[in-house]
């Protein structure tokens, strides 16, 4: 079991609602961005002298631009339905991690400066001045929300704490308190093209290496092209897919599917990143700038379709926001949705009989599926609401004979965040990540014990990294987490396997007998 100098929550039969422990996580704060990282994004380098007025001005500006913020600030009735729904609240017991309490950090300031009762009777309505302490409190607790939207499912008015967290981070960034992890990464996208800072030539090398791996395994030369002008499909995928484990096996799975279906595809070195951390920091300009890189790449490479790899928040941005941010995409093939998720593509091919899967290839595994929050509650796949739940499960079931779901109140729209989403997947927030993973780990552990589940599949780069990191803290193996397209790739029946390779495999099989 992994070691930590804080208390790791225990797992039990169900997730108990903890007794509140005020101040339990007030020490948790991510590193502040360096001046150059803020400047790259158009923010002041460090805390400005007139931060108070600037912050209030920015709040006023956002209240005029975002109906969500304006309405959500006013209409909460403090019914408490959300108070036991946040995984960070359940994992840390800190009352400020209750969604409504997190909103109130800002609502109290909103009331003081923007409402009549708050201006005249602050104590009565819980209004307070914006002080330096309040600003620091915002920085801490608006970085203890993964913007997963679980609270918004249960709110009678649909109040989405993610919208308030984003506004909070946006205001903080505008007074010079940007977050290092997210802002540094966005800077890398602008300078190099992806979150990891992987330059074009290195990417090309990596892809060649992966193609060789596939050939070694299957005997088939599967193309993994970069910047190939005139391809049918531009694949936009999280850069973690290029070399992180277990992501990379998913990428090889996409390549096999494209190959088997005869789809000519490419990645772009200019837009080699699906992730859009502009969402996390709540900044429209940066989110748009990142999205427009993908539009530019699709035009430059003269592709006809854009297909999106396994990434949660990025799929929300792509599915829900790309058309607004970087559309219209009328220059692409209108026979396919823009963008199309790799799961939709594979599912359609499977339905049409253009590819075939042999689920017995994964007979050594018992699978469950983790619904990633942004896919589950911020997007869709296919034509029908809920396709984002059914399509990945259909793929897993087609690729594996053994499948069980986790508890009903922890899947689909009720899914628990992995604990690392929303720009929190950084080592300086490790305690928060481990504690916030508890509700998901609890549900997973339950099916491990009851149904001997060996693997949990996911379609999100952040989830995959977070699981690999936190599983050991809960006495489960880090290699339990697997890409959906890893399963698909392993089960895929490749029609052009050369004969000598088949014989070779048979020999191996005989040798093992």
């Amino acid at each position, binding site marked *: 079991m992994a070691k930590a100098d804080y208390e790791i929550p225990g797992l039990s039969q169900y997730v108990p*609602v903890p007794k509140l422990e*005020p101040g339990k996580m007030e020490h948790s704060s991510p590193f502040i961005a360096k001046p150059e990282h803020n400047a790259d994004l158009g923010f002041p380098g460090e805390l400005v002298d007139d931060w108070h007025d600037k912050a209030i001005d920015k709040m006023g500006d956002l*209240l*005029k*631009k*975002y*109906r*969500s913020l*304006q*309405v959500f600030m*006013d*209409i909460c*009735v*403090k*019914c*408490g*339905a*959300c*108070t*036991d*729904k946040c995984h960070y609240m359940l994992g840390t017991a800190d*009352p400020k991690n*209750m969604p*409504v*309490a997190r909103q*109130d950090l800002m609502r109290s300031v909103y009331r003081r400066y923007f*409402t009549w*009762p708050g201006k005249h009777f602050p104590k*009565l*309505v*819980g209004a307070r001045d914006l002080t330096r302490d309040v600003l620091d409190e915002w920085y801490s607790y608006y970085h203890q929300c993964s913007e997963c939207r679980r609270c*918004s*499912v*249960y*709110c*009678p*008015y*649909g*109040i*989405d704490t993610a919208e308030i967290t984003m506004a909070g981070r946006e205001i903080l960034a505008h007074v010079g308190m940007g977050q290092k992890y997210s802002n540094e990464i966005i800077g890398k996208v602008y300078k190099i093209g992806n979150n990891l800072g992987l330059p074009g030539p290195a990417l090309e090398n990596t892809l060649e290496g992966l193609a060789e791996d596939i050939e070694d395994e299957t005997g088939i030369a599967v193309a993994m092209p970069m910047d190939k002008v005139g391809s049918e499909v531009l694949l936009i995928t999280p850069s973690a897919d290029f070399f992180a484990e277990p992501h990379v096996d998913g990428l090889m799975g996409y390549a096999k599917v494209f190959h088997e279906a005869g789809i000519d595809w490419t990645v772009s070195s200019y837009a080699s990143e699906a992730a859009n951390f502009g969402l996390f920091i709540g900044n*429209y300009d940066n989110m*748009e700038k990142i999205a427009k890189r993908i539009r530019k790449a699709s035009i430059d490479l003269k592709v006809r379709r854009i297909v999106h790899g396994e990434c949660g928040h990025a799929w929300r941005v792509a*599915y*829900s*926001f790309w*058309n*607004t941010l970087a*559309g*219209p995409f009328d220059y692409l093939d209108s026979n396919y*949705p823009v*963008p199309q998720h790799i799961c939709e593509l594979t599912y359609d091919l499977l339905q049409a009989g253009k590819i075939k899967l042999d689920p017995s290839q994964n007979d050594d595994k018992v699978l469950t599926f983790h619904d990633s929050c942004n896919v589950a509650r*911020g*997007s*869709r796949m296919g*034509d*029908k*609401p809920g396709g*984002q*739940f059914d399509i990945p499960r259909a793929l897993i079931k087609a690729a594996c004979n053994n499948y069980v779901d986790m508890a009903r109140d922890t899947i689909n*729209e009720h899914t628990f965040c992995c604990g690392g989403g929303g720009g929190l997947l950084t080592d300086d927030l490790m305690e928060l990540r481990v504690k916030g993973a508890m509700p998901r780990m609890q549900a997973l552990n339950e099916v491990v014990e009851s149904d001997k589940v060996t693997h949990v599949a996911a379609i999100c780069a952040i989830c995959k990294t977070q699981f690999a990191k936190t599983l050991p803290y809960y006495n489960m193996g880090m290699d339990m987490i697997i890409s959906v397209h890893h399963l698909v790739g392993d089960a895929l029946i490749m029609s052009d396997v050369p004969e000598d390779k088949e014989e070779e495999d048979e020999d191996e099989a005989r040798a093992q007998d």
Partner: protein
Amino acid sequence: MFITGIFAVGFYIATIILIVGVAMKVMRYARTPSPLVIPTTPAPTTRGGVVLRMAREVFVFESLFKGNIWTWVLGILFHYGMLIALLRHLRYFTDPVWGWVSLMQWMGIYAGFAMLAGLAGLFIRRVFVDRIRYISSPSDYLILALLFFIAFSGMMMKYVSHTDIIAVKEFIRGVMTFHWSPMPTDIPVLIHFTLVITLMIIFPISKMIHAPGMFFSPTRNMVDNPREKRHVVRWVEERSQSPDQ
């Protein structure tokens, strides 16, 4: 006549504040754009589906039902109790009384008790559940108390000290037609009217604005069709046309 004058003027002022205040809030919500498509999914893919989703939220509190069954039960008791009680009060405003209003009069007492039970339950929950106590401001308790005592004083008039409701009706009709008629001055009436005037005044500036406000909640009222239909609001359009972009 002095007291009648005070309450008549009080009702005029309260009505103006209620109508103008709610109208101003609603206009602000309506004018503030929602730049991105953010329904909480799975969400309806058509306008008609959204109307149904909103109707389920308004009439059966669908999300709250998923969230917390006790709050849902108490909330339903309170809101439907209040709705029936309010509709029953139409008999004080209409002459002759509308047929269906006469027919539903018998429901009034049950509604009154449902409302009191719901509000008492919500108050107890607010005091005794540590998570809800933590998020409560004085105003949260006071609004519950205000509603409770409106219902309580109303019930007092029926069960404890009978009020001359003919005179009440004449007073209300008088206020409506600007031909004032003296109002009864027993204590429950004075309390009832004072609290109702207070409620009307604070409605637009308190959390009670959730009633009209929830219809503007983007996570519930947006259609899930972003790939099919491009969604662009004015500030985004104006911004992308400016040369520095």
